[in-house]
């Protein structure tokens, strides 16, 4: 038996008895960031492939959500800061060692760029839109001309943004649940899956919707494989990671994780999507909503559970 107690007394807010320094703002941001990355990735990909005509929702309409998601996500991040008036300090340094630093810089690039992207399509969404100023009209013309180059930049930045949401957590060696290199790819795939689900939900075109549904099925498959891989890694690792895995294998997060994330968020929507592809009539809103819900739950659970896990000494 080993028992450790604080004899001097220690009950620091948000640190004791369990670390809880990151609240709802972080998982909400991780979700919105992943969603934005997913939508932008597909928009950029199908622009590069020259499929704007066949995939209008992917390339145009769904991207209107991206600046909204990113601004809301950034606002959530801002709310999380405890020394808010100093937030600009993020942009006076570049620290390659710190994922949060380069993540902040990627957001600084991708947010305005996604706005420019949307601006080039606003006239197609609102036909009598008027930029009012000559300079904006010129800028729009220029942006439309360079759409393909913009797509290449967005393709790369969206992958970095998507993987960053996982690396932000996996860089912390002190939290064994997060400290696994599979977390970056897992969050990337999950973010792309939520992006694909959103496009699928918005699309009115049968071809586009079926294609996104197929892509989403592949992503769900990869995600399930990564989750199995995550736990296999933990079980074969050191005591701290075995204990981290135990939170999900009989511990306090077992039901919330396996029921809400895996069953309702991945397996059930996958079954619905397969049935729909087989010709059954299923409202697309159901699988799409479940995937988004599962993605959000996944981030909440990972952030909450990760903070409980720690080194033992």
């Amino acid at each position, binding site marked *: *038996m*080993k*028992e*450790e*107690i*604080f*004899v*001097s*007394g*220690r*009950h*620091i*807010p*948000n*640190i*004791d008895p369990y*670390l809880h*320094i*990151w609240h709802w703002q972080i998982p909400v941001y991780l979700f919105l960031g992943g969603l934005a990355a997913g939508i932008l990735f597909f928009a950029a990909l199908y622009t590069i492939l020259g499929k704007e005509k066949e995939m209008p929702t992917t390339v145009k309409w769904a991207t209107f959500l991206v600046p909204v998601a990113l601004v809301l996500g950034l606002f959530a991040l801002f709310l*999380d*800061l*405890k*020394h*808010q008036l*100093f*937030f600009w*300090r*993020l942009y*006076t*340094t570049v*620290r390659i*060692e*710190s*994922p*949060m*630093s380069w993540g*902040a810089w990627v957001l600084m690039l991708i947010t305005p760029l996604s706005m420019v992207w949307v601006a080039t399509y606003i006239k197609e969404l609102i036909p009598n839109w008027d930029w009012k100023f000559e300079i904006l009209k010129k800028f729009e013309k220029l942006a439309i001309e360079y759409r393909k180059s913009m797509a290449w930049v967005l393709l790369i930045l969206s992958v970095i943004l998507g993987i960053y949401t996982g690396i932000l957590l996996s*860089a*912390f*060696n*002190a*939290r064994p649940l997060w400290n696994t290199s599979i977390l970056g790819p897992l969050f990337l795939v999950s973010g792309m899956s939520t992006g694909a689900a959103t496009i699928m939900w918005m699309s009115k075109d049968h071809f586009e919707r079926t294609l996104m549904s197929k892509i989403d099925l592949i992503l769900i498959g990869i995600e399930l494989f990564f989750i199995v891989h995550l736990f296999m890694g933990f079980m074969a690792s*050191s005591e701290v990671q075995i204990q981290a895995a135990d939170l999900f294998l009989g511990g306090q997060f077992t039901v919330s994780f396996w029921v809400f994330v895996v069953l309702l968020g991945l397996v059930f929507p996958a079954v619905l999507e397969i049935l729909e592809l087989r010709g059954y009539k299923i409202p697309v809103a159901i699988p799409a909503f479940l995937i988004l819900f599962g993605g959000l739950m996944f981030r909440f659970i990972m952030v909450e559970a990760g*903070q409980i896990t*720690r*080194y*033992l*000494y």
Partner: protein
Amino acid sequence: MRYAMAIDTKKCVGCSDCVVACQTENNVPHGYCRDWVVEAMDGSYPNLELEIRSERCNHCDNSPCVRCCPTGASHYEAGGIVTVTHNECIGCGACIESCPYDARYSHPDGYVDKCTFCMHRVVKGEKPACVSVCPTNCMYFGDLDDPSSDVSKALKNRKYKTLAPEAGTKPHIFYLT
């Protein structure tokens, strides 16, 4: 120069004087502390082993908190002391998440705060507050590179350990066992 501290777990009685001295010296807000005392009981009755440890920031050589800080507010001072520049800290909490020792906290004023090895005293050649008040003289402070410092002498003849060495942080607080 590498500042370090050695704490004799055989001499410590767990009086918490170090905790109070730190709170007074550094004006630590009510309900917070930069150091604390842990009583670790190991074994089963009647073969019990008790270890009392006064814990604080380990001022690690390879500090995860310095590494993950997005603004560079967490940094090394001369002698390897890890501190936070308050007006560079944005209060993102990354360093708090990154510390295997949970040695940092969010100060009510917003910035992240922690043990500074009483840098303001150390630069004047004084000992940190916790060391200077210890009634059993179980804490030794000094420069690891100086063989005649209190800490070097304490480590020379005793067995010692660090906390969670597997975290790879290379702590500068040594526990004499």
